[in-house]
Each structure stands twice: as structure tokens, then as C-alpha cells.
């Protein structure tokens, strides 16, 4: 696949369809891959990489890149949903992007590899359904399924809702049953347990803003938390309340727009399961207002900017299961 992608990228650069290519650049230790913009065939030949560690969602870069000129982007299904949502919100100039859908078999999570006690990594190779991890302390072999990122274990779709061309086989939507298991587990707890859980998680937050800055739905010119005139700007959570405030408002602002790409959880240096906040909104929206998938198309109205006369009353929250 990587070679096919490189070939197509070079062709499209050569025939002038695009002037730049968004992809992924190799790193120091195999796993530390950075998203990158390539401008010529030589760079692509030397640095372009596509493997199990290319987890970063590149859709958000297209806001900036599409304003500069014609650009090619390779999109995983996740990225394509995000892309479509950005198109719906007029954030990306469709005519300036050439989108190639690429299949995704799930991305590996280096932290899950390291959590198995593997460190001193010098290189990683894919070997069928396993990875061989070379380290200075010796080689280790881990099963692919054991180290896939959480978001990939509950992948929502292998389909690309938007693309100009596809490389490889187009996939299908996958059943949602497992995706909300984490949310359901929390819902089944008592309020006290939930409070303790979230306090434990959110108190780890260092307000590095990685979750926000990586999020393809967080595309505000100036975030309310950075805007001193908003009345709620924060540079750091000076009180646990501010940790709650930031994460509630952030989740609320992307509610109905979040495509559940899972980047927030991936980038969190403190491993806070931020996707559980976004997925709660997705689950509530699905249950209360009918299944809705942001980025599915650019016509269906965002559930937070639409309504029906018979919508549930807010009191529905009080009536739910156990407290």
C-alpha cells in the first residue's frame, strides 16, 4: 500500500493535479511518525511512510493547506469522516483538495506496547498479525490485536464518506455495539462512583490543550478558553472546577460535530479517556434524537441545531436508571 500511495502521490504531483501532498514522515524509532507535507518526489521517496503507526488524523491540516493551493491528502476512514464534517462547516475548500481514501486495518498504540514492559525500542516490523519490536534489551513479539489503539478496537467504519479516488478495497460501516461499552460501564455506576472516576481522570489534566488542538472539530479561530474576553479563558486549571469546565464545554462544543476519530485520547499525555466524554454525547444523541453520525454526509442537520416537536424533556436525565 505504501508504495502504491507514493506512486500515486508522485503522479499527481507530476501531472500538476496538486502541488503538495499531505502524508506521514518516518521517525527515529519506527513508531514516532509525524504528519508531513511533501512538495516533491524526492522527499516522498525518502521520507513518506504508511504503516500501523500512522495514526495521526491529517484532515485538520487541510484547513490551512487548502487555503494555500491544491493539495493531495490520504485519508483513513476516520480522517474522511472528519474531512466531511469540515467540508459541511465550510472550513475546507473542496475544490482545493484531492482526497484519496486508503484502507485502514487499525493503528497500533505505542503506549500499549510499552505498557507491556517493552522499552529501548530501536525499530518495529510488521509480521502478519504481529509486530516484532527490536529493542536494545532484545527482540519482542506482540500480537497486533493486543496493541491496537482503543479507537481501532471499536472502529466505527471502514468506509470513506468522501473521496476523489480510492486505493484498495472500500470497507463498510461496522456495528456500534462495542463502541459504547465504556460509556455504558460508567452509566451503570452510581453518581458517586462516576464522580470519583472522572475526578481521578480529569485531575491528571495538565491543560496542554493537545486534545483541543489536535481535534478536527475544534477549528475555532480563537477558542473561548484562549479568549480573554470570553470570561472563561483559562491557561491552566487553577481549581478542579476548571478541569471539569474545560472538558465539559469542549465536549459540548463538539457535540453533534465530533466524528469520534479518537485523536483526543490518542494525544493526551496523561492518558485521560477523553473519547468517553464525546462518545457520551454521541450515544445520547443516538438514543434521544435518532442515530446521527457527524461527517456521514453534508446534508443531515447537526442534532444540536435542529429539533422535533416531540423531543425528550431534559427531565429524561432524572428518570434514567440508577442515580
Amino acid at each position: 500500500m505504501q508504495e502504491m500511495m507514493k506512486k500515486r502521490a508522485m503522479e499527481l504531483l507530476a501531472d500538476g493535479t496538486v502541488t503538495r501532498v499531505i502524508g506521514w514522515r518516518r521517525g527515529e524509532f519506527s513508531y514516532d511518525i509525524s504528519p508531513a507535507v511533501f512538495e516533491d518526489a524526492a522527499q516522498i521517496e525518502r521520507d513518506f511512510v504508511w504503516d500501523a503507526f500512522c495514526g495521526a488524523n491529517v484532515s485538520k491540516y487541510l484547513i490551512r493547506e487548502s487555503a494555500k493551493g491544491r493539495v493531495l491528502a490520504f485519508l483513513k476512514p476516520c480522517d474522511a469522516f472528519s474531512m466531511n464534517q469540515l467540508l459541511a462547516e465550510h472550513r475546507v475548500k473542496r475544490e482545493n483538495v484531492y482526497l484519496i481514501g486508503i484502507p485502514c486495518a487499525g493503528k497500533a498504540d505505542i503506549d500499549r506496547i510499552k505498557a507491556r514492559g517493552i522499552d529501548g525500542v530501536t525499530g518495529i516490523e510488521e509480521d502478519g498479525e504481529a509486530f516484532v519490536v527490536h529493542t536494545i534489551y532484545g527482540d519482542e513479539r506482540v500480537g497486533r490485536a493486543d496493541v491496537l489503539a482503543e479507537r481501532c478496537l471499536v472502529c466505527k467504519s471502514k468506509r470513506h464518506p468522501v473521496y476523489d479516488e480510492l486505493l484498495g478495497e472500500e470497507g463498510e460501516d461496522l456495528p456500534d455495539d462495542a463502541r459504547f461499552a465504556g460509556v455504558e460501564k460508567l452509566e451503570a455506576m452510581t453518581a458517586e462512583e462516576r464522580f470519583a472516576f472522572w475526578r481521578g481522570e480529569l485531575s491528571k489534566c495538565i491543560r496542554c490543550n493537545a486534545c483541543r488542538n489536535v481535534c478536527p472539530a475544534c477549528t475555532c479561530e480563537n477558542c473561548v478558553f484562549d479568549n480573554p474576553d470570553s470570561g472563561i479563558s483559562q491557561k491552566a486549571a487553577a481549581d478542579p472546577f476548571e478541569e471539569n469546565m474545560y472538558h465539559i464545554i469542549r465536549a459540548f462544543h463538539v457535540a453533534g460535530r465530533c466524528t469520534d476519530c479518537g485523536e483526543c485520547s490518542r494525544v493526551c499525555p496523561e492518558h485521560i479517556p477523553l473519547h468517553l466524554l464525546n462518545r457520551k454525547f454521541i450515544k445520547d444523541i443516538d438514543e434521544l434524537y435518532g442515530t446521527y453520525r457527524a461527517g456521514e454526509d453534508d446534508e443531515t442537520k447537526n442534532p444540536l441545531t435542529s429539533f422535533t416537536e416531540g423531543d425528550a424533556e431534559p427531565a429524561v436525565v432524572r428518570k434514567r436508571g440508577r442515580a
Partner: protein
Amino acid sequence: MQKLGVFVCHCGTNIAATVDVKAVAEALGREPSVVVSTDYPYMCSESGQNLIKDAIREHSLDGVVICSCSPRMHENTFRKAAAQAGLNPYMVEIANIREQCSWIHKDREEATEKAIVLGRAAIAKVLLNTPLTAGESPVTKRALVIGGGIAGIQTALDIAEAGFPVDIVEKEPTIGGKMAQLDKTFPTLDCAACILTPKMVDCAQNENIRILSFSEVEEVTGFVGNFTAKIRRKARYVDETKCTGCGLCTEKCPVKKVPNEFNLGMDNRRAVYIPFAQAVPKVARIDPDWCNMLKNGKCGLCSKVCTVGAIDYKQTDTVLEEHYGAIVAATGYEPIKVDRYGEYAYAQSKDVITSLEFERLTNAAGPTSGTLLRPSDGRHPHTIVFIQCVGSRCTPEMGKTYCSKICCMYTAKHAMLTREKYPDTDVYVFYIDVRTPGKNFDEFYRRAAEEYGVHYIKGAVGKVMPRADGTLDVQASDLIMNEQLHINADLVVLAAAIEPSKTARRLATMLTASMDTNDFFTEAHPKLRPVESPTAGIFLSGVCQGPKDIPETVSQASACAAKVIGLLSKNKLTGNPCVAHSDEWMCNGCSNCASVCPYGAITYLDKDFRMPDRSTKTRRVASVNPAVCQGCGACTVACPSGAMDLYGFSNSQIMAEVDAICK
């Protein structure tokens, strides 16, 4: 540092009895920024207002907080006062320490403490107020009256008299409404048609009035002074401009068994018909549900007899779009369906009728040409029982909770007229209360009882049972005599409750005018603004606002016209400056705001921005039309970046109030 003035009103004892106004003024005077804080018995009085004006001038105040009654009451008064003293009127905030404090608390200390907190919240807000200037919009000098009953007719005539063009939209083929169906009118016993039809003709002849009969309003957009309405002109299959109302077609039409709605189905009309002799416009209409030509293309008689070629079987609905400065709702009422009260046997017996049916039975143009005959056998009834409060004054489950107001009087009229015309008739009226406030009303009722010998019995009817001999057994109670009665009646007349027209609810939604739980339109103020809806530019005429009789309807209709004329005589309207606005530097053009705007006030522009690095960037940004925006604020919450904010109720102002209240 801003300089604020605080003015605490006693409202006589309304506030001062429960709130220690001096303590409030003193406590608020200690707040930073407050340079003057004082109290006064009536702030809204002229001397009270002068006190405020003097303080504004003397201390060069930047803002004013008035602790008084609800801002819904005197906000405008104080804003005007501030403006007169040279302060922007939007630099005034009201702390509601009457309705929301002194009147609901008994404990003086508690109420005083709360008043101080409310005052602090107002201070916190006013510190963030910005001077606002209202925009202006032109006024379309044309009014739309929806409903062509006596209310709509009177309103339209009055507006037209003042020189403004008016359109009357009437859903039926003729104007006239319910009053056209009445026989006589209380308490003077004028013939309804005699006093109504001249007004109908006036409408037709007034060059400022256009009657859009057999039409319905489909869509209303815009705002006060600038409404646009789409009006569906339903196909009547007769060219209105050609028909002379000669009636030839209605005589020749072979379809004769169409229930005549004007006579409430008690006789028949043809498939092509003119509703009644004095109809305006006097134009025939073909009923497509009955016309053979329209149903299966066979017949065409009417077309053949029409001398002016007015019949047009191919006519279709058309939609007219027109601009208006003001809209009047005059949608009137309907009697409720009485079949749900099984005990009165309305559905079983033809001789149990409603009062409106009784009107038609006694009317010279009615099915019996004015002779009172039983619908079942056409015989003269000798015993008539009138039952009051059918469906009125009930629990919501049983009927209408309100008094329908007109039944006592029209029943007295019916009873009296019956006794006068047919002295051999026994007339009983079963009542719970007889309510006759109104000029010459009680005298009228007493005449019925005293001079005409109508039997008024306090008590309700429990059951009406048709008997084998064709009479009706009326089982009732006489509460004065404390006995149960059985009356063998020939005719039973039910004073059915009246309810707003079914079309009113849809119209209210279109007009964004509010309604009460009974579907009567809500007035802007029950006492002081009774003919205006809370939605600017929407006015209320007649029973659509609440039950009323003809004299009351006509006076309200004229009052309504006066309000409309007042509006239309202005060339420009000053808008509400508390509208949304978007910070273009923060807006990312996502369209969330536009998708929640009920007025379509938000559009998007591709705009060039000079960036700090001196490059130019084209960005898609939202732009609010302040004349269209009504200031609800839905967009401000839909906007994730906070680019959208609302003047007068900005994020920071509301949060400042929250802070002040919670601290």
C-alpha cells in the same frame, strides 16, 4: 472608573413595606463605581424621574440602576428619562425588587437582603452595558386583517377610513362571519343582517379595502412594519372578476342535495352556490366535492347558463405575495362540538339543537323561513328547554374552563323572542348563574323573566331522553325548590361554549404570536395593551383574544384599528438594538448560527482580512442583519467560538449577573 447612580423606589408601600429601601440604597451606595445612591417614594413619577435626570447631569453618570418594579413595567419609562438627561437609554438596568422581591416575601430582613443582591446583579450588569443605538426600518403602509367577521370588518373599515390600504383575508367565500348567521342581536333586538350587511357593503366599496375571500394565509415572514405574507387564493371555479352574482347558475345546478353550511346543514344548497343573499363578494362558488363537472367531467350546465362566462372549471389555487406593515388577527370563534355530552342526546335527537342552530331556525333566511319548527317533524314546539353552560365553566377534561360570556344574553333573547312570537309556548331556561353585566343587559334578562314569563330555573339538566312519542324527557334539578324535575319538551336548545377558530393555532405559530392554553391569542398586557399581541406588529381583534359579544367586539375592533393606524402613520420604526452581532475575527463561518436562526437574519460573506503578517486572507464569516434579528440569542449558544454575542444580554453581562448573585 465608571460612575453609576442607584435609585431605589418605595412604590408607595408596595416595596417599602417589606424591603428596607434606605438600607438597600445605603448598601448599594457602598459598591465600587456607585457615586450616588438614593431612594424615593415613586421613581416612575415625574419628580422621581427628575431626580434621576438631575443625578445623571450632576454626577455625569455612565450608568443607572433602578431598583423598582418589573422591567416589563417601567423599563421604557426610565430609559426615556435617561435619554432626556443625555444618557444612552441602554445604560439603564432595572432590579426587580417588587414583583420578584417585596411582593413575594414577608420577612423584612430576608427581602431587604435579596433586594440588595438583585441590585448588585444589576450593577454588575450595567457596568458591562454598552451604549446602543436602535436601527430604523421603513414601514409598509398596508395592513392585513385575517378574518372577515364583524371584528375584521370593523377593524378594516376603520383603518381604511384613516387612509391606509387594507386586505381582508377570509377563508369562507364571503365575509360576514358568525354575525351574518344571527337573527336578532341583544339587547336592542336589531336584526343582525340589517346592521351588518351595510358594513359588508362598505367594505366592498371602500377603495382602500381589498377583500380576499375564500383565501388563507399560508406563510408570514418579516417583522413589524415589514411583514411579507403568502396568501393562498383557493380555486372557486368562478371568475370573481366576471361573476355578477345573478344567481342563474345556482338555480340551474342539478345537484340539489348539498348540506347548506350557512344554515348549519339544516337545509340544502346546490353544488354551485352563493352562501347567502347578502354575501360579499356576491360571487358564486362551485363546490368541487359535489360538482359533477369537476368530479367526472359530466354536466357543465352552469357554464352554459352563465351569461358572462364566469365559470372556469380549470381554475387552480393561486398564491399571492404581499407586503404589510401590520397584521390583525380576527379569526373569531366556533361553537364547540356538543355530541361529547351524551346526556343531552344531541346526537340521538334532531330536536336537541345548539343556540346557533336556533338562530337559523328563527331567521327569515333560514331553513324554515323564520317559522320556529321542530327539525324532526316540522311541527310547532310547545315546550322548549334552554340549557346553559354546555361545556363552559368545566374542568379542562370536561370542556372549557372559561365562561363563554354571550350565552346568558342570547338565551334570554331566544326565550323572549319565542314567547313573543309564540305565546302558547312554555320556555324553560336552566342556569347555574345568569351573568348580565353590560349596558341594559340585566334589564333585558329581567324582561324575559318578568314580562315574557320565561321560566328561569336554577339548576342543571342531568339527562335528556328522547321518548317514543317524539318528545324529549328532560330530567333536571331545581335547586331552589330542592327537587328533581322532569319536563316533557319538544325542543331542547344547548348554549354551547365557544372556542377559538381551529385555524388560530396555526396562524399564531406563523405570526410567532403567543396563545393561552385555550388557544385564545395572548394580549401584550391584559389591562393596558389589550389589542396588541406581545409580538410587535401583530394586533388582536374580536373573539380570537377572548369571548366577547358584538358591542364589545366592535369596540375592540376599533381600538385595534387605532393601534394599527398609529403604527402605519409612522414612516420609520425604531428597532430593538438588543440584537446579535458577530465578531468577524473570531467567526469561523461554520454555519451553526444560521441554522438555528428563526428569522433568517444571518448570512455569510467571504471577506478579506488583513492579517498581522500583512498578508490578506479571505474568510467566510457570519453577518447579522440587525433589522431582521429579533434578539433571541439562539445563535450565541450555537456558536462554539463565542464570536456571536447579543447586545444587551452579552455573555459577559449575564455571567456578571451570575457572579453577583452567587457571591
